[in-house]
């Protein structure tokens, strides 16, 4: 956990956190990452917002949990379900949001390249890590306004 906090504190524009979500290995700009939280309880209640699974409580804050499963597939086994908490822009404001990850993550540096034209809205760009080309996630796209586009 402290490693992630350290990463976020020292992140530069070209720093990325590489992580596994569902069956995908993806990257997230390290400057957006706030914390990797342990598998705390997911609280659910009725709502009609697409792509939200519920909320967790972390450090006194109620943090919405983004449901990435419809687009990124696969559910992490519960025992491996950590929450990566990151800053999101919603309209003119920013707030924290969480996504479920399996807990394994690493720091990578590189220059993000623009996404191909046919990439969905949740892909902000691509990042070359070794032989791999990873999608860099745009968490802001996982919102109600973009839900149709994201699902495509």
């Amino acid at each position: 956990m402290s490693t992630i906090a350290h990463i976020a504190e020292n992140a530069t524009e070209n720093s990325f956190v590489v992580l596994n979500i569902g069956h995908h290995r993806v990257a997230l700009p390290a400057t957006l990452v706030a914390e990797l939280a342990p598998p705390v309880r997911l609280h659910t209640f009725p709502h009609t917002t697409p792509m939200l699974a519920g909320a967790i409580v972390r450090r006194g804050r109620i943090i919405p949990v983004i449901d990435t499963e419809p687009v990124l597939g696969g559910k992490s086994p519960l025992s491996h379900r950590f929450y990566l908490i990151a800053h999101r822009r919603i309209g003119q404001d920013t707030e924290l949001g969480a996504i479920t990850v399996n807990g394994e993550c690493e720091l990578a540096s590189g220059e993000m390249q623009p996404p191909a034209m046919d990439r969905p809205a949740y892909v902000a760009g691509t990042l070359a890590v070794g032989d791999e080309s990873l999608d860099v996630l745009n968490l802001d796209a996982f919102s109600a306004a973009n839900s149709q586009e994201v699902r495509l």
Partner: protein
Amino acid sequence: MTPTMTKPSANKAKSSTAPGEKPRRGRHPETVVLFYVANQMFAIAADSVQEIRSTDGLAGAANEIENPELPKVRHTIDRSGRTYYVVNAGQHFGLPVTRPALVLILRQFRAAVLVDRIDRMAEISGVHPLPLAFTGEERRWYRGLAYLDDSVIPVVEPTGFLAPQEFQKLDRAHKLAREREAAPAVQA
């Protein structure tokens, strides 16, 4: 059965703040009624509830109302010369069908709410704003969220059960129903 509302005693009412949370400006402790609908717990400000009655006790006092556009309202009840529209909370929140046993009659608002059961009254340390990520109907349904006994509980907005335009529709349907009822008497 007529459940009555009593203020919780100081040692029974549990007040809870999220772990590590400092008191924040704009949040005030308040007493809420905790109730269940389809195994989901909700909270409502105690001072927005006028009465809690069993559905059995109100069976004779309820009148049916036909409004296909608003299936969540199928009955009215008359209390103190006012007509209250009875909202099925399960249908309102899109929850599975249940058999509600209690009616919360709201204060200063012509609505009553069918719920499964009351859990208890409790004091919450405050209402957290609903995160901006929630953009659907829940923004109208809830005042925010409460953190109580390690659970996040939606705090319902009483005015969210029926929008003004829904009231207008129901008032029209209710008026028509009353006119239909009165018509045979006039002819006779």
